[in-house]
């Protein structure tokens, strides 16, 4: 392989790395000024306000069109997630109940409660 100094791919990588460092450092310096903070927060405040207004208008428009809004879809997805979580809890409970009544067929390893007697490697003479 070509050595690092004349390998064009290595030169390209070094150049990219340096460019990234340089740009990050330049941008960080620029963003450290109070002026940047002022402009950013003014723009951010306006954008947040505009977004809020737009969301309200869009919600009304979608209701008018008899279509679900994003927030309604998100809330439906969350309800589905909650139902999935409840199913998972019921499954866990059933697994435990089955374990307590001595049910067999522990295929997924969820039932067997391991012993809480493990010692650190130092106490066991370095063996695990």
């Amino acid at each position, binding site marked *: 392989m070509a050595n690092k100094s004349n390998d064009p791919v290595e030169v390209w990588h070094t150049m*990219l790395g340096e460019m990234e460092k340089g740009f990050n450092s330049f941008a*960080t310096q620029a963003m450290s000024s109070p002026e940047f903070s002022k402009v950013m927060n003014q723009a951010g*405040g306006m954008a947040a306000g505009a977004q809020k207004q737009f969301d309200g208008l869009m919600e009304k428009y979608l209701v008018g069109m008899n279509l679900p809004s994003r927030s309604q879809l998100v809330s439906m997805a969350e309800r589905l997630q909650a139902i999935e979580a409840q199913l998972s809890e019921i499954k866990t409970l059933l697994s435990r109940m089955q374990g307590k009544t001595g049910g067999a067929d522990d295929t997924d390893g969820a039932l067997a409660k391991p012993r*809480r007697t493990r010692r650190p490697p130092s106490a066991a003479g370095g063996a695990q």
Partner: protein
Amino acid sequence: MNAAAGSTLDLASVSERIQTEVQRAIQRSIKGVEYIASSGPTPGATPKDTIRSRGTMQLYHYRPMTDEIYRIPVLIVMATTNRGYILDLAPGQSLIEFLLKRGYDIYMLDWTAPKPEEKNLRLDDYVLGFIPECVRAVQEDSGETDVNIVGYCAGGMLSTLYASTHPDGPLKNLVCFTTPIDFTQMKMFQNFSDRRYFDVDRLVDSVGNVPAEMIMTSFDMLRPAARTMGQIQLWENIWNDEYVKSFRMMDKWGADTLPLAGEYFRQMTKDLMWENKIFNDTMTVGGREARLANIKVPILHIVAEHDHIVPYEAARHLIERVGSTDKEEVMLKGGHVSLVAGANAVKRMWPKLDSWLSERSV
């Protein structure tokens, strides 16, 4: 003679290099199409059960992988801005899997996006509500009174506040990763939230919960070139399946930033960014004094040498301020995320965590 031989060698190696690059270019075209057409890998697949769920709070119990486990269960508290699967990316790249195989009983307090009706959640709800509720659930589920807590970033900060407001237990050992204490040293965040220009009340009152996009943008602004460079590096390495898999998981995680509950954000801005109350020893949570000196349990703080989110200057005071006698700070190579996930974490942080925790988990 020698110069001529050297030049022949160089020509041969350059030709070999060109050949490799041409092959990679072809692979890039093929794999590039595959990349666009396929969905990414699914992280967070280590078998687990959700044992508690309340609003934004999710408590998982990971199924043990050994017949004999350490007596004291471990509760991992995730940062409120990010999903916990960064600690469980894929087999062989999962801190959770590593700890399970080393014989720990692992629980995780993870977060989902707070709903609009959860905009009033405050730090108090996290420190005096969610964490104690999960600790009780872990005690109940494991049958053990003692609990170890491991907190990452803001999760470490919440765990620290929990520990300082619950000096009588049942916390047995505390591990924090990259936990900020002196918020004046988080220079960029300080500038973004400069109280002369940043009207946090107006923001929270108008949006309710602080949008994930805003949180993500503020993280991206800490290293503005990183995302573009990431894309260039992806294109270069797209022939490498392992690289692409890791990239997609990290990219998915980065884009999966969570919104923050409005009141929690307001309180973080005023009490921590502006008043620096933890560092100044004036922090209270729900009327309880939250001084770091109240923490007396054994504590390990792992910090990253190149952390651009929580610089060492912001994190270094934790160990010197706590009241514990058994305390240790370890600085490891890496950044905020590579400290906990990726090849460096596997080599450096995971074994350190295991060696410290194993001695104290019996």
